[in-house]
């Protein structure tokens, strides 16, 4: 295994647990929650969970998490991918219920908020990626690999830009930390030659 593989497995898992857990705990402590109804809170947390899954996805794809066989890694990657699609749908539907006109503006690309365009970009890239994953057996493996990696970069870049520009659910420092993890992980996985496929 490459570099990270030399670290003790427990350390890697503990680090990942902290990197994912701290943003979630910090978001759960947000003073804004007091002023939001449950569906709005759920929509926000669906977004947080989406970013958490995005940080894990490249690690699973590249088989970087210790103690998992390549087969287990791949299966978890597919499972997490499906969960990511559900998280994004939950995010958008929850926000739609909270404030329909704001979400319609976002989807029609006429929102006044600059971050929303990045979220929409990442969402469509994710849906495209999921569609390709479903149709994968019909695709040439080279095409699949290139498309999936390219879309992964767009998904993470779009999501990170989306998340960082928002003043909302997430605490800024833990949000930046999770964003950096997701960014590094996707770059590592895309650059790697022997990613699990």
């Amino acid at each position, binding site marked *: 295994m490459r570099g990270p593989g030399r670290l003790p497995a427990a350390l890697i898992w503990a680090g990942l647990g902290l990197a994912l857990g701290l943003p979630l705990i910090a978001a759960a402590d947000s003073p*804004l929650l*007091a*002023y*939001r*109804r449950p569906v*709005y809170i759920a929509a926000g947390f669906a977004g947080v969970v989406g970013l958490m899954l995005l940080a894990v996805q490249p690690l699973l794809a590249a088989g970087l998490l210790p103690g998992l066989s390549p087969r287990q890694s791949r299966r978890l990657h597919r499972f997490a991918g499906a969960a990511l699609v559900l998280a994004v749908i939950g995010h958008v539907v929850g*926000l739609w219920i*909270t*404030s329909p*006109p*704001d979400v319609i*503006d976002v989807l029609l690309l*006429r*929102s*006044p*908020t600059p*971050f*929303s365009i990045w979220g929409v970009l990442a969402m469509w890239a994710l849906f495209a990626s999921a569609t390709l994953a479903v149709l994968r057996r019909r695709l040439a493996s080279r095409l699949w690999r290139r498309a999936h990696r390219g879309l992964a970069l767009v998904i993470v870049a779009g999501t990170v830009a989306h998340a960082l*520009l*928002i*003043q*909302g659910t997430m605490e800024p420092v833990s949000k930046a930390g999770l964003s950096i993890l997701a960014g590094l992980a996707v770059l590592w996985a895309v650059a790697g030659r022997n990613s699990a496929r």
Partner: protein
Amino acid sequence: MPQLPIRRRHLIAAGGAALALGLISPLAAQSVTPTRTMRGGANNYRPGAPIVDRIGGGGFWMSGTVRRAGDGAPLAGQRIQIWAHTTEGHERDPQSHGATLTDENGMFRLEMPQIVPAFGQPHGHLAYDSGDYETVFLRPVMGSARDTSLEAHFVLQPA
């Protein structure tokens, strides 16, 4: 009266200045262009929000001016509707909405609950929709979520 010539000179200068201002100001006033509706400004608008002394418990001030396009004259008695996501409710909630009237100087000021970030930005909404002038919706964004006031200014065009 040794000071008379000086006075006369002053008077002439003042008169000249007044004349110059009188000639220039209509040209300058034409640069007072109407405010355009902002993107998303009308979101969660509720027509006919009641005129209130204060929205909810207050603690935050929304203020601004209403002027006429062209000459920039302040417009008194204009109804401005205000709403936002605050510590006391969502934008869609009726109790988050209220209206106020401009004073003789075209200024308005309404106390409302603290605005909190919603949909990613701490922002408020304002509407002019009384019909004498063209309808305008504004969506100002606070510089910081900790701000306790926000301003929005209208320049209206006759309908």
